[in-house]
């Protein structure tokens, strides 16, 4: 059995960081990530179940890890060695129990909600966030019965999706996949849940102009969530800044009202808001802006197109950034993070519902399975990560590992 294992190795870490200068994902060839023979992880308790991955996605945070570009903030929130992969659809060969406590037969197909909060860690009583279902806000991700790890895919004890040896998942993490779902649709549920959480947490107001900066997977799932879950009650207008043609096509298909090249974003926001321009800056702007990239540039762009007293939501994972926060101060902007998922009180009735449940309802009608562009076997992990790192340029959106040894596919 093989798995991609990320080890603590400072020399390789430095090498990956240097290699990533040649392009995102290049750190895979020289960094701490290696393809090794491994054993299946052992369930750490009674409520844990073995999962055999079918597909496991590569996300931006994975690439940042592989390239040694993750924030040092996370250094103590992971345990080594770990197997990455938190976007997972797999099979419960031995059956199991899902987050509702319902028994699942052997062979059931499931996705996991990867946050390792108080319940998987056997912490009693759970923290107030976990008690309320907001697992993404759990502060106990480095303590309890598991090694540190904010999610499956960053914890030495659980395994991760980039493995043919499988992983273990706590019942509270397990969501059954409807029969009608393809594996591609299932593997996109996790990033869709992130989009749902961001869209519903932002407080979009009636008639707001909502801007999405970036149209990678997170940007596109955010667009879909806004279109299906927020627009019906707010009549908001969704404007997307996308760098590549295929991203613009996806954004339009997923419900964006206006899609413009990234470098035309400010111009388009100005048009939509009737803003004036003083010193190159808009006097008005959007009510809510989702930054789905996480770079200094994208956050600065987001701040630049947000109207006074508007909200900027950081959906893409940032690291250290350099920003001029004067406009944030002067225009009384709200800058908020949106991490993972939880319970969504502002979901359409019957609220509240879990982000993951909403995402499961969203994926099929929105056609989000089409975002899966290419699947690679583990053995070609360097190609896969390089492809994921240059996905936009190469016309791709979501690149995944195919753990079921199906014939490699791409679209």
């Amino acid at each position, binding site marked *: 059995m093989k798995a991609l294992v990320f080890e603590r190795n400072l020399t390789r870490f430095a090498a990956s960081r240097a290699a990533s200068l040649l392009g995102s994902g290049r750190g895979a060839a020289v960094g701490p990530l290696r393809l090794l023979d491994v054993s299946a992880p052992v369930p750490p308790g009674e409520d844990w179940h073995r999962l055999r991955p079918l597909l496991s996605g590569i996300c931006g945070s994975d690439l940042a890890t592989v390239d040694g570009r993750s924030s040092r903030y996370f250094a103590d929130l992971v345990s080594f060695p770990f197997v990455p992969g938190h976007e997972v659809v797999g099979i419960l060969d031995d059956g199991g129990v899902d987050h509702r406590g319902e028994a699942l037969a052997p062979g059931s197909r499931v996705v996991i909600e990867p946050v390792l909060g108080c319940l998987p860690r056997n912490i009693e009583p759970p923290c107030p966030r976990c008690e309320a279902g907001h697992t993404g806000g759990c502060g106990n991700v480095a303590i309890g019965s598991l090694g540190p790890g904010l999610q499956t895919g960053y914890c030495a004890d659980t395994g991760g999706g980039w493995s043919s040896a499988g992983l273990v998942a706590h019942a509270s993490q397990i969501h059954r996949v409807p029969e009608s779902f393809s594996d591609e649709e299932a593997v996109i549920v996790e990033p869709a849940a992130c989009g749902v959480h961001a869209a519903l947490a932002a407080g979009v107001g009636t008639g707001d102009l909502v801007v999405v900066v970036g149209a990678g997977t997170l940007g596109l799932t955010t667009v879909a969530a806004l279109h299906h879950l927020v627009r019906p009650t707010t009549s908001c207008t969704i404007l997307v800044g996308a760098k590549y043609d295929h991203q613009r096509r996806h954004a339009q298909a997923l419900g964006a009202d206006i899609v*413009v090249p990234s470098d*035309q974003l400010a*111009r*388009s926001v*100005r*048009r939509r808001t*009737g*803003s*004036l*321009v003083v010193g190159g800056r808009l006097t008005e702007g959007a009510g809510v802006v989702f930054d789905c990239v996480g770079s200094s540039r994208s956050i600065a762009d987001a701040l630049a197109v947000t109207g006074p007293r508007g909200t900027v939501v950081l959906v893409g994972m940032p690291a250290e950034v350099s920003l001029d926060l004067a406009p944030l101060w002067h225009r009384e902007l709200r800058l908020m993070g949106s991490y993972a998922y939880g319970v969504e009180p502002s979901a359409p009735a019957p609220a509240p519902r879990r982000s993951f449940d909403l995402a499961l309802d969203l994926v099929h009608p929105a056609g989000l399975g089409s975002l899966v562009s290419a699947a690679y076997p583990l053995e070609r992990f360097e190609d896969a990560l390089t492809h994921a790192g240059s996905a936009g340029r190469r016309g791709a959106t979501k690149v995944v590992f195919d753990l079921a040894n199906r014939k490699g596919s791409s679209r």
Partner: protein
Amino acid sequence: MSPRPGFVLEVDGSSPPTLFWHGERLSLEQLPPGSRVIYPPEPIDPLQDPVTAIRAALTHPVGDRDPLPALLVPGMKLTIAFDDISLPLPPMERPDIRQLVIEEVLDLAAGAGVDDVALVAALALHRRMTEPELRHALGDRIYDAFAPFGLLSQHDAEDPTNLVHLGCTSRGEDVEINRRAAESDLLVYVNINLVTMDGGHKSVATGLASYKSLRHHHNPATMQASRSFMDQHRSELHSSNWRMGRLIAESGITVFQIETTLNNDTFPGAFRFLQKREWEWRGKDRLGYLAASKALDGTPPRLARRIFHSVRAPHRLTSVQAGEVESVHELTTAQVWRQQGVVVEGQTDILTMGLPYISPYNVNSILNPILVACLGLGYLFNLYRNKPLVREGGVVIMTHPTPWAFDPVHHPSYIDFFEEVLSETTDPTLVAERFEESYATDPWYIHLYRTGHAYHGVHPFYMWYWCAHALSHLGGVIVVGGDPKAVRRLGFRPASALEDALEMAKDVVGPTPTLTHLHAPPLLMADVQ
């Protein structure tokens, strides 16, 4: 020797290659045998003493209008409006004809003891002129006498306090014009009539009007019903302006119209070969072409643009008439035809045109893709009387680099129009329905129009509407040597060479097309029989 009239050459094996403009570049193209090349008439003889001719026109007006001296009395309010930077093309050598005319008017006004005199640049929705441009048009003496005292203004179509609504025409068209002009005892309008479209009631009804007024005739329906708008009697654009002009007259506003015509002498010194017929080129002309084309090929576009925009045309005055608007304009139109008219037998399947670096809306600026379309399909396509030069379903081939480039100071709304509107639709009617109002009322564009040097937010729409007749008439438009992406955004087809374009055109018009080349500038008007 008297100047020769226009000429239609039939290309044969002995014909030399034909000069094509390509923006700020030039090329010689060998047209297929049997093709026709329409050459403009040579520059007609100018008036030997322009100032005397101007004085004569002012004191011997035509139509129902007293001589200007009789209209000037002490204590009156006099406004002199004049055409803006869009005329003539290229800008003429000093002294500009506006300066000569206005100096004479001011001399008469001073002699009559008229103190309340104001000058207004009739911008309509065009950009405000810069001080050097105003000085060029009016001369330093007039500029220094009026500008420092706030007596030289530029019409502001977005200043509600400076507009007067005079009423509506029988067709419900709002007539709203400049307050100073409307409230003057006499409004003198000084025109440069470069083409037959210019002048007449269009001077005041368009040049001094607001968007509320202009939208009645600057729209796709009017443009499609103007065949062409160079032919007043078949132009709904003119019909609308004439209705407005008559309402202005009925409102009690006395307009003393002064119209001037210029000859075809368009290019000075080193560029004289541009207005000669190729088979008559002498060694000096061939050398001039070689030097210019080689030098321009190696010159960065920005520098080449600056070189060409510094060209001043040696245009000379060929006529001046003054008095009542319609009587004046009838004489003027005949004068323009005298200089520019060329009889052409029958239409063509393919019309080729080399687009130069300049149009009325990019003086000292970039001919952006929208203006490329407008120059070719709005202006040159419409240089006809009776029938278009190209048959219905035919193809226009234009040569121009068509860069994806805009002047952000002069054309800010053009950038958004190109990005936002043309990426959605190129149909003029849909463009108008879906987008016009939001651009026309955009406060940022209004601010830039009023305080900077920007064309009004709605102006790119008007440029696109100018193309409406051609777009509905033609079976295809091909741009040779243009930025393919920009050309496709316009809804046209790009070609890398004229030969390729001709092959592409055959897909539309058939395998044995007729071809006609419009050899302009200098400008000509085709009287298509």
